[in-house]
């Protein structure tokens, strides 16, 4: 009943004291104090140099040089040779997979993919897979897609091989879980740009390094969701098994793992999607395929980058739906196999295998290409995409002159700029104290202490001004995300049609590389800062929308019925019952939205948001390793502070991932 209690607090009618006496009032007071100090002493109190640790960055640079010099000796020591061996193993794995697809020819690859899905996932999912292959062919990106698929296959396999056992451990041991959580946070928040160079020095370039980079990002969800699944198994079931004399191993293999099956499959599914979102980064260090088609396309041929982005989305959606369908269809709890049925299924499997072999043989007999290249619709599609791009790039259109350009300018002049100046120029003690006080009001003493420590770290590494700049943009993006997410999430929960439209749009926004969907906004809202904010909002909204929608749909029908029987209108039910009861889900949405917004900070740096993102990007591109790491530490500290603060009082400890 904690939910209902929390909800009651937010209902104005049930509050005995007026709002200005409560926490909101105190928060307003804090903000007023910050404003006062801004107008009184702006510019006067920059973060003091005495509190900066400036020698950290050169230390890091020297470390990188040392690493490179020792790594590239004619006979490197054993540690480096181990990294070499691992990289070679991954290189071989990826190239073996690629050669397998080449050997199967396009005909065999298509048959294999489609029939595996057909056999285990059913007709609908198989049709989707076939459509995905068809679109790779028509986009003229068969070769790139096959290479990316091989890379993803290896990366996901390795991520699961590492993540699932650790997840089981974390699920069974609370101590281990606590120890590993901050590491997982860091792996997900620290931008890949920061560790790309050390990865390259240790693992060299090529598919191996690309797999390692992808793993750093894709292992955390595998661990987290697996652990959640293991923990979710009812304790009395485990106790019953133990009472019956099961060993620890038996409990795990016969009780916990089978009962956590759905969660384990979800972790496979999420690992795939996380891995796919690293494709573009992997392309920078020799992970061939769709990723470098996107990066190189952006410079010389944006239409081509859009095609490659579309192929990534199609691959993600097809894999998502296929794994989901296979998880549902093969659920032992839902299918009851008789001997006869099993016999039929075996015959079915054999038939599928036979068709695959036939497709391969036919491919070889008729000299089908290793990749599909015979006919593509690329040139035909290009004329349309180019026409759309030309329209977007034309500043004389109605859209640009009257809608997007004024909107962008308004956002900069009345949102981003004033907020940025406010946070940068307010005396740092005022900002510091103000933010910590707000954290205290929102989340209590312990979390406020964490926020204070994190803010201090930001200053200590010398990134106070940049971090405040980034923070102001994160704030604008989060506010917009919450508005968009609440509106669309509520609407989707209330209307089936909207829900059906929103789901694929969400999928596209989460898997399309941000650099691709940001292209139009660079032209349509050409003021620095805005494309970055737009990118964050588009990337973070889907999570917010999903959580809000789920929260509202999960409100118990009894509460709704009760309200309706008292004569409440639909709007009243929504505002007074559903939204307050979904408060926890909504707050979780806000929390996740902030983390997602932070994840796009570096992309923002590449499209003009400046500050920390720019520092990180430059760190990799100009060989300033120290600078990149330090800016990443600031991003991480900011992320942890914001995460802990927005977890709120009610949801203490109940952190769920989605």
């Amino acid at each position, binding site marked *: 009943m904690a939910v209902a209690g929390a909800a009651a607090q937010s209902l104005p009618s049930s509050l005995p004291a007026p709002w200005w006496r409560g926490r909101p009032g105190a928060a307003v007071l804090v903000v007023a104090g910050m404003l006062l100090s801004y107008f009184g002493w702006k510019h006067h109190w920059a973060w003091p140099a005495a509190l900066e640790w400036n020698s950290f960055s050169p230390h890091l640079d020297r470390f990188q040089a040392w690493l*490179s*010099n020792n790594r*590239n000796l004619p006979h490197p020591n054993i540690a480096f040779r181990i990294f070499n061996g691992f990289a070679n193993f991954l290189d071989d794995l990826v190239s*073996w997979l690629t050669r*397998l697809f080449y*050997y*199967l020819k396009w005909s065999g690859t298509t048959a*294999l993919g489609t029939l595996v899905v057909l056999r285990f996932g059913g007709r609908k999912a198989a049709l989707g897979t076939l459509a995905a292959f068809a679109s790779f062919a028509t986009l003229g990106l068969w070769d790139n897609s096959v290479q990316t698929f091989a890379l993803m296959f290896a990366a996901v396999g390795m991520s699961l091989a590492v993540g699932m056992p650790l997840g089981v451990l974390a699920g069974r041991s609370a101590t281990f879980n606590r120890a590993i959580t901050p590491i997982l946070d860091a792996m997900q928040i620290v931008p890949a740009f920061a560790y790309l*160079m050390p990865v*390259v020095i240790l693992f*060299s*370039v*090529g598919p191996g390094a690309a797999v390692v980079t992808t793993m750093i990002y894709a292992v955390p969800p595998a661990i987290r969701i697996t652990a959640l699944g293991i923990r979710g198994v009812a304790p009395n079931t485990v106790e019953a098994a133990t009472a019956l004399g099961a060993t620890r191993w038996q409990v795990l293999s016969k009780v916990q793992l089978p009962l956590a099956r759905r969660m384990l499959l979800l972790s496979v599914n999420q690992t795939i999607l996380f891995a796919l979102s690293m494709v573009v980064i992997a*392309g*920078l*260090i*020799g992970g*061939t395929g769709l990723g*470098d088609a996107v*990066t*190189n396309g*952006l*410079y*010389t*041929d944006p239409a081509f980058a859009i095609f490659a982005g579309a192929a990534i989305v199609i691959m993600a959606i097809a894999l998502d739906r296929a794994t989901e369908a296979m998880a549902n269809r093969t659920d032992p709890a839902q299918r009851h196999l008789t001997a006869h049925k*099993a016999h039929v*299924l*075996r015959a079915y*499997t*054999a038939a599928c*295998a036979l068709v*695959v072999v036939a497709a*391969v043989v036919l491919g070889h007999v008729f000299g089908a290409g290793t990749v599909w290249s015979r006919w593509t619709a690329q040139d035909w599609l*290009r004329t349309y995409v180019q026409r759309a791009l030309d329209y977007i*790039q*034309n*500043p*004389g259109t109605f859209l640009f002159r009257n809608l997007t350009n004024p909107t962008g*300018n308004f956002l900069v002049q009345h949102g981003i*700029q004033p907020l940025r100046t406010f946070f940068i120029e307010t005396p740092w003690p005022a900002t510091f104290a103000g933010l910590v006080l707000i954290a205290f009001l929102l989340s209590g003493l312990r979390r406020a202490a964490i926020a204070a420590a994190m803010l201090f770290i930001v200053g200590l590494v010398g990134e106070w001004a940049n971090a405040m700049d980034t923070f102001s943009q994160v704030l604008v993006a989060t506010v917009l995300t919450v508005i968009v997410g609440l509106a669309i999430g509520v609407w989707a929960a209330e209307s089936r049609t909207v829900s059906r439209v929103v789901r694929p749009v969400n999928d596209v926004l989460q898997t399309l590389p941000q650099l691709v969907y940001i292209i139009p906004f*660079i*032209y349509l809202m*050409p*003021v*620095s*800062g805005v*494309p970055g904010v737009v990118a964050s909002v588009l990337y973070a909204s889907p999570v917010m929308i999903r959580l809000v929608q789920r929260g509202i749909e999960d409100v118990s029908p009894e509460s709704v019925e009760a309200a309706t029987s008292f004569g409440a209108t639909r709007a009243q039910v929504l505002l007074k019952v559903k939204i307050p009861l979904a408060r926890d889900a909504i707050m979780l949405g806000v929390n996740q939205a902030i983390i997602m917004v932070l994840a796009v900070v570096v992309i923002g*740096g*590449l*499209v*003009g*948001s*400046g500050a920390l993102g*720019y520092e990180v*990007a*430059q760190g*990799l*591109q*100009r*060989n300033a390793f120290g600078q990149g790491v330090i800016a990443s530490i600031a991003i991480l500290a900011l992320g942890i502070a914001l995460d802990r603060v927005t977890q709120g009082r009610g949801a203490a400890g109940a952190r769920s991932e989605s």
Partner: protein
Amino acid sequence: MRGRKLAAVAGVLAVGAAAVLVVGSAGARSKASCGTVTLNEQAWAGSTANTYVAKAVLEGMGCKVKITQIAEIPVYQALANGKTDAVLEDWQHVDQYKQYISKQHTVVAGGPNGVVGHIGWYIPTYLMKAHPEFATWKGLKGKESLFKSPESGSQGMFLGGDPSYVQKDAQLIQALGLNFKFVSVGAEPAQVARWSQLYKQKKAVIFYWYTPQYLNTEYQLSEVKLPPRFKGCQDDAKSGGNVKQYKCAYDNTIIEKVFSKKFAGGGSPAYPVLKRFSWSNQDQEIVAKWIAGDHMNPDKAGKKWVAANKAKVNKWLGK
């Protein structure tokens, strides 16, 4: 049940694996004496032009050519390991030269590729015609507000270059005492989007730009002259220090080639050819325009240029 299903899956996989092994061992080795040469192509169009012209030449000699696309700094590790053989357009990565060429001896300098890069402050030519005083930086003084933008407030906006490029514009603005706000708009595609959008509206814009660049054939741009160079003048603000040491025009950049030590010392017939590879800014801009401006297939563009420039190519081939 489960065991049988697994067995079936394993069976399918085993057939596939066996098939691959057969093919792998039967796969014919390349007969060409020079084997496979790996060239690295970077994101910008000029680099694509070098790479594909070199590819066409090497393929004409019977080499197989593989192209990698690795970012500018990580590619040095690729050269050190011999995963990439050659980079044909390197914009003076002095730190890397020190570390990989002088210290580790894992990469060797390949000499200039003939293209001379030039960085500077550029404005649209229509603006230069309307304001002839903008020919030098002194003419900008007092007129900065002409370049106002939503994010620059009362100051003028100076559009900075791609964060990965050598630059010192924020320092230059300060040293010259100009009332510009340095605005970073991010990577090159974003920067191009920004200034080309203003160009199309015939508005005032000043930005970091360079030659050779194929877009220079599409847009009419003029350079603003910066103070002359003096001894000890720096171009890369990364080194920090007093802004005064940046108060000069950018130096011309000799574009270099760099090779992997393994490739240079491996006796490949492709090495001397790539070492002699050298062409002009105009050559590169033409090929870059075919590829990026006209969307010609890069392989086709490379072959087209090679066919039309037999004399230059023969020189590279040592004929």
